[in-house]
Structures are given as structure tokens and as C-alpha cells.
């Protein structure tokens, strides 16, 4: 399964809905999307991972890269994920301390630092 990406603006947040598998082959596509959004001035991102079937460290690297980019503009990158197998990867790498992870897009959009 390939990667699917779509974006939507909700208030001052940009929601990126990701579907499929994020791995060494597809991660560059997600990286391009995040870089493009930041370059276009979208500094508050919500990445909805509810449609993600598989995530590896390459995908984690892309998300960390996205976080670095938005933070350079005092922005934010929030994740939406309820899938235990995906959350486990964030836990074992310690990234649950780095990313705010929400249970719904609504929750992530309304959240403030």
C-alpha cells in the first residue's frame, strides 16, 4: 500500500491526513509535504495518523524533521493517533515526550501549549 496525503485548514491549524505505510520508500513523500507546508507559511501542523497502517524509524525521522522546521518559526506539530501498534514505536524511542499526541483531530486543533 502506498502513502496517501491530504491537507485541510482548520482555523490557524493545518491538518495533514496520512494514510497507508510510512517507510523508507514512502517517507520522502511525507517529508516533501511537510517542507512545502512550512515553506508556504503553515507553522501549526496537526498530523492525523489514524489511517496509517505502518510506521518505521524513517517516518519518525520525517516527523522530527517537521517538528524542527515548525519550531524554527515558533510553530507546533501535533499528532493524532489511537493505534497501539503505532503508539508503541513512539514510546520505545522516547518520542512521546517530544510530540503532543492527541486522540482526535478536534482535540489537537483546539489544544494550546
Amino acid at each position, binding site marked *: 500500500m502506498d502513502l496517501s496525503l491530504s491537507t485541510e485548514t482548520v482555523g490557524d491549524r493545518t491538518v495533514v491526513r496520512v494514510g497507508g505505510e510510512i517507510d523508507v520508500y514512502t517517507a520522502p513523500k511525507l517529508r516533501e509535504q511537510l517542507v512545502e507546508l512550512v515553506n508556504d507559511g503553515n507553522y501549526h501542523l496537526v498530523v492525523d495518523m489514524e489511517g496509517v497502517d505502518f510506521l518505521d524509524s524513517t517516518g519518525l525521522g520525517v516527523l522530527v*524533521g517537521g517538528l*524542527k522546521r515548525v519550531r524554527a518559526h515558533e510553530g507546533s506539530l501535533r499528532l493524532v493517533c489511537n493505534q497501539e*501498534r503505532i503508539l508503541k514505536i513512539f514510546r520505545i*524511542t522516547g518520542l512521546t515526550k517530544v510530540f503532543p499526541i492527541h486522540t482526535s483531530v478536534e482535540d489537537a486543533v483546539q489544544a494550546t501549549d
Partner: protein
Amino acid sequence: MATVELLFSALPEHVRTARLVAAAVARRAGVDEAVLDEVRLAVGEACSRAVGLHVSQEISSPVRVVLTEDEKKFSIEVADDAPHAISVAVATPGSAGTAPAADDAGGDGEDDMGLAVISGLVDDVEVSAGADGGLIRMSWPTTPASATP
């Protein structure tokens, strides 16, 4: 001992194939369904790392994956041909406590994170590397009674 061996060109698009094959063989070997996601992720990490090493060092030989079904365990070996300057050994289960540095442009950060994920996921893992290449060995216990006939 039943063994499946997979050789693939060091291209990112083939890593998914390796994941699918490894998960299929693991299921048949009797690895618990709840653990198959871990097998899939761990072999994907190991293969991604090997592909990255081959690509960055312009090595044309394929990446080798050996899947071995034993009486009590299912083992995976992922071998690369990239010469390594130093040998490393990772044998501490669940020891990935801190997040290594990652870089969205790829490179050593992602390589380290891949190993961190593997060592966090797999209880029995051994990483070795030398002048002739590197090898990641991983194994999971099997329950033969539940193996597919």
C-alpha cells in the same frame, strides 16, 4: 529446520516486500499473531538500514535476509556488505530509553533510531559489524502447535 532466503537489490521499494515475506514465514512458523507486527517492524528497520548503507556506500550487491524456522524459535538475519570501521553489539532488551537525534535529511540519526527501535522491540537481538559487512540477528519464540499445516 526450514529456511527461506531472500536477496533483494538495495532499493527502498523492496523493503516492503521483505517485511511481507518475513511476516508470512513468521506466521507459518508459529510466531504469535500479537508479535507479528513487531517482526514486520524489526525486519523493516534492519532492511532499511542495510539499504541505506548500500546506497550511501555505492555497494551494488544485494541485501540478504535469511528466515529460519526452528523447533522453538523463529530467527531472522539481515546482512549487508557495507564495511564497518568498528564492531558493535546490542544485546540489552528494551534498553532504548532515550530518543536518538534524528534528521529529516537522513543519515546517521535515522540509522541509530532504526537500531533503537529494533533493540526496544526484540528481546533476542545481536548486531555485529566488521570489515566484510554487518549482520543483525533477531529471534522470537514460536508455538509449534499453532503453526499452519
